[in-house]
C-alpha cells in the first residue's frame, strides 16, 4: 500500500471521528419491570410499524457552542412493550403486518382477539443546550390503535408520558438523557397498563368479547324458552 493511500485513509478516518465528535448519539437502553396485574383473558396481536421500531429524535445544534443530539428510542420502546404486554394479556403475538381487510387470513391464522398498534405521535424535550445542566426532560404523546382481526378499527386513543433525569450528580449528558428516556418509557407503560381498560371504545370491545364468550359457552338447552302469554 502506498504512503499516499495510507495518508488518505488516515485523513478520512480522522474526518469521520471529528464529525462524530460534533454529535451526541444516544441509543436508549434500560431494563423494564414486568407488571403486577391480573391478566386480561385475550390474545393480543401487536404490530410495531417501522417508524415505531426505529423511532429517534434529532436536535440540530444552532450555534458553535452547541452539539447535535440524536437519541434513538425505538429499540427501547419495543423492549418496554414486549415486557409490559405479556404481563397484561393472556397471550401476545408479534405480527409482521398491520391487519387490513385484504389480509384477514394472515391475522386470523394467529388467532388473535385484537391487534394493538402503538405510535409515538409527538415528542418534546429539553436538553442541556436549553437548561445548561445535565437534567433532561422528555414528554411523549402516544397514539394507540386497536384493530379487530378483520382490520376494522375498534379504538383509537392517545396517552402521554413524562420522564426527567432523576439526578444531575456525576452524570454524563448521554447517561442523563438515557435515564430521562427510561423514566418516560416506564411512565408510558404505567399509564397504558392502568388505563387501557378505561378507554371507552376498549370497554365496549371488552363487553362485546364477554358477551361472545358467554354465547359460545351457553349450551343449546340453556337457551331460555319464551312462552307467549295466551290472551
Amino acid at each position: 500500500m502506498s504512503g499516499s493511500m495510507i495518508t488518505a485513509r488516515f485523513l478520512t478516518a480522522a474526518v469521520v471521528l471529528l464529525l462524530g465528535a460534533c454529535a451526541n448519539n444516544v441509543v436508549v437502553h434500560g431494563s423494564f419491570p414486568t407488571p403486577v396485574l391480573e391478566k386480561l383473558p385475550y390474545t393480543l396481536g401487536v404490530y410495531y410499524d417501522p417508524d415505531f421500531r426505529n423511532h429517534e429524535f434529532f436536535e440540530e445544534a444552532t450555534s458553535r457552542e452547541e452539539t447535535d443530539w440524536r437519541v434513538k428510542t425505538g429499540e427501547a420502546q419495543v423492549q418496554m412493550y414486549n415486557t409490559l404486554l405479556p404481563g397484561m394479556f393472556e397471550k401476545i403475538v408479534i405480527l409482521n403486518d398491520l391487519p387490513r381487510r385484504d389480509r384477514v387470513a394472515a391475522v386470523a391464522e394467529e388467532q388473535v382477539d385484537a391487534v394493538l398498534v402503538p405510535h409515538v405521535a409527538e415528542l418534546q424535550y429539553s436538553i442541556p443546550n436549553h437548561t445548561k445542566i445535565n437534567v433532561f426532560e422528555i414528554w411523549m404523546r402516544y397514539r394507540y390503535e386497536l384493530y379487530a382481526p378483520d382490520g376494522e378499527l375498534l379504538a383509537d386513543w392517545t396517552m402521554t408520558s413524562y420522564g426527567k433525569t432523576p439526578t444531575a450528580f456525576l452524570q454524563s449528558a448521554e447517561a442523563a438523557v438515557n435515564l430521562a428516556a427510561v423514566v418516560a418509557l416506564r411512565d408510558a407503560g404505567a399509564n397504558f397498563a392502568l388505563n387501557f381498560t378505561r378507554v371507552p371504545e376498549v370497554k365496549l370491545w371488552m363487553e362485546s368479547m364477554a358477551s361472545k364468550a358467554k354465547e359460545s359457552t351457553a349450551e343449546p338447552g340453556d337457551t331460555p324458552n319464551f312462552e307467549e302469554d295466551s290472551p
Partner: protein
Amino acid sequence: MRIRKFLPLTCLLALQGCVTSSVDEVLYRGTEANLGDASVVILGRRHASDYETEPDFIECVGDHIHSADSSINVMSELEFMNALYPWFEPRTAPLRPEDIERLLQVKPVVAKLQEMKTEYMVWIDGETIRTEGSGSMTCGIGPGGAGCFGFGTWGNDSHYEAAIWHFTDRVEVGRMSTTATGQSYMPAVIIPIPIIAPVQSTACDSLGEQLLHFFSAKY
C-alpha cells in the same frame, strides 16, 4: 505518624460549612418496638410538577436506618417499585393511606406484598434547593501554569417531610419533618478551596434518626 494520619481528616472537618437544622414530629400511635421479619420501605414523592424528591436522599435515609439497626429490613426504593410495577410510579402511587384499599383489590399485588412482608411505608416529600449565591472567580491557564482567583458563596435549603403509613391497618401513624440550611464558600487563591455545607446529608441524618427512634427497639 498518628498525627499525620488525622491531619487530612481534621482539615476536611475544619473546611465544612456550618449547617443549622431542626426536626419536628407528630405520632398518632406509639413507636414500633418489634418489627420482626417485616420490612419497611422508604419512597420518595415525585408527583409534583415543579420538584421531585431526590432518589439519593431516599437511599441515604434508608442506609442511615439500616446501618444503625441492622435488624430493620429496609427495602430499596427501586427494588420495591420494580416489584410492584406499575402501582408505585409517580403518576400511579397512592397519595393517601385509604388508596391502599384500591391496591389490595388486585390479587397479584396482594401476593407480592405478602411475599415482601411490607409492614410500613414511609413517604418522603421534599427537596434541597440552592438559594442565594454571590461572588465571582476567574481562572486562567498559561505557559507557567494555571490558577484561579476570587471568592464565591451560596446557600442551600433542605426541607423534607416523612409520612409513615401502616400498611396492614391502612392508616397514617406519624409524620416527621426536617429543615436544614447552610452556607457554602469557595475562596480561590491559585487553588479553589471548597468549604461545602453538608445541608442535604444533615437533613438525611436528622430524618433518619427520627425514623430510627420510631422503628428501632434499640433507640
